[in-house]
């Protein structure tokens, strides 16, 4: 009887042991299954649209599960930090690796056989990532776990690299959007409507070489006076465009304020306003200004370092046009603190034209590197005197584009054409009205 009882107790005891083993094995299988799921998620999870912080957070959570760690800390040198698992152990890891800056390469593993096993692994391009793992209390990391740590670290490096590329692409996109917005704002200072004045036909166009233009043209139509300015800021792109908005706005407001003065005096006043600004930025601005009073058969020109202004007059005898160039009488704005230019008077009878352009026209290169040149522009104008201003502008741009076919636009291009359509005051009458800075007619 007692033997039966003893055998029965042994069986119960063995059954209990087997049940315990079964429970542990089941738990281990569940853990292994969870680890496999975590590993699957880790491998499947992309970082193409994640920030570095999101990558670090995802990596810490999944690493803790995959490795079966008590706690995990992941951070990068950009100071994105994430913890997973036991908070107290994670703080111990943070004490080891710190929360900012690089981790010393000597920090690899610290094993305290009584309480903890801590592993620190640097990863990613140039070791920008750090993975710190805390084993469960009283246990050491197994060989399998160490291999998982390596696998997680390698994968984490790829994720961080992808995230860095994603962030760089985002920054570039934001910068491009800002540049496009700034270029759009800068372009707003250019006139969209031409002056509608009896006796004169005006047309203007500005094509930037890049997103934004350093060229500008502007009109001041006040009382009986029309002042037209064309300018070109040195350099290209956004810096030139930003400067262009300042100079263009200053030019228009000065022309409106001083419309009774000569173009040379207007130029001098503009120079006085913008010189220091240009001096600080190291830029220069070429500017040509023409002033016409309604009904006059003459137009006044002042040129500060700008491309020659063309005067085109019909010649009935030769059935062509006489073209005169007005070169600059002073350097550009921004060169001398005290700018002094002179005024040239040009005939502006019905049918006559005055053409202001920027150097982006004449200096357009063809495929062989040859420039279009001012002589060619003059030849074109000599044969375009009887057409409308719009037509002349279109012909000039067509010619420049044709010359530069197959090559990049080398500079901003601007043209303003003023064409006289009705009779008015003569040159002699204009000179009698005065103008101390008039040097020739």
């Amino acid at each position, binding site marked *: 009887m007692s033997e039966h009882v003893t055998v029965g107790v042994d069986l119960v005891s063995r059954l209990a042991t087997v049940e315990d083993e079964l429970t542990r094995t089941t738990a281990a299988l569940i853990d292994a299954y969870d680890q496999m799921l975590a590993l699957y998620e880790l491998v499947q999870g992309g970082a193409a649209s994640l920030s570095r912080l999101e990558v670090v957070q995802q990596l810490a959570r999944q690493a803790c599960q995959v490795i079966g760690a008590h706690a995990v800390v992941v951070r990068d040198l950009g100071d994105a930090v994430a913890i997973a698992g036991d908070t107290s152990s994670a703080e111990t890891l943070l004490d080891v690796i710190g929360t900012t800056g690089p981790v010393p390469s000597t920090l690899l593993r610290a094993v305290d056989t009584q309480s903890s096993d801590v592993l620190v692994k640097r990863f990613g391009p140039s070791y920008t990532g750090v993975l710190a793992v805390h084993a469960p209390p009283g246990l050491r990391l197994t060989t399998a776990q160490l291999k998982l740590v390596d696998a997680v670290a390698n994968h984490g490096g790829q994720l961080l690299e992808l995230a860095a590329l994603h962030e760089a692409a985002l920054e570039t996109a934001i910068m491009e959007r800002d540049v496009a917005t700034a270029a759009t704002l800068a372009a707003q200072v250019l006139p969209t409507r031409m002056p509608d004045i009896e006796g004169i036909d005006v047309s203007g166009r500005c094509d930037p070489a890049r997103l934004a233009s350093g060229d500008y043209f502007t009109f001041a139509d006040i009382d009986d006076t029309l002042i037209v300015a064309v300018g*070109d800021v*040195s*350099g*290209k792109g956004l810096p030139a465009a930003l400067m262009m908005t300042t100079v263009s706005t200053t030019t228009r407001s000065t022309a409106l304020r001083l419309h009774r003065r000569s173009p040379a005096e207007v130029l001098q006043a503009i120079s006085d306003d913008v010189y220091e600004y240009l*001096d600080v930025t*190291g*830029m*220069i601005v*070429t500017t040509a200004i023409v002033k016409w009073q309604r009904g006059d058969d003459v137009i006044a020109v002042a*040129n*500060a*370092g*700008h*491309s*020659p202004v063309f005067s085109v007059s019909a010649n009935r005898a030769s059935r062509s046009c006489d073209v005169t160039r007005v*070169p*600059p*009488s*002073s*350097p*550009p704005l*921004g*060169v*001398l603190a005290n700018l002094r230019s002179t005024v040239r008077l040009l005939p502006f009878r019905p049918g006559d034209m005055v053409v202001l352009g920027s*150097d982006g026209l004449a200096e357009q290169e063809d495929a062989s590197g040859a420039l279009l040149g001012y002589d060619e522009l003059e030849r074109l104008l000599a044969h375009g005197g009887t057409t409308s201003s719009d037509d002349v502008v279109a012909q000039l741009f067509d010619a420049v584009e044709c010359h530069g076919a197959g090559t990049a636009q080398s*500079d901003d291009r601007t043209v303003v054409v003023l064409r006289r359509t009705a009779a008015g005051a003569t040159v002699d009458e204009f000179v009698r009205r005065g103008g101390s800075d008039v040097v020739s007619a």
Partner: protein
Amino acid sequence: MNIRVTTTLSFPTVVIEGRFDAHETAAFREVVDSIDTPGGFDIDLSETRFIDSAALSELVRAMKHAREHGYDVRLLRPSDPVSVILELTGLDLAFDVVDHP
């Protein structure tokens, strides 16, 4: 562009060969800013075959810097393309241009 500094009787001359444009202004500025000879320097443009507005701005900057310190920068023997640009921009009126030094 090739840029170098030659010295005659302790007076430096910056020689610019080839194309002088926006891509070369940083190199030009570095060379010019490194010259600390009292009395300034000349810029030889005889072998400069192209110059753009950004490069002209750098020449103006060098000229202003020199004048602030009481001396001048001379432009020596500008090539034909450079002479044309200097005249077209009126900068020949601002610089001391020397055709036959």
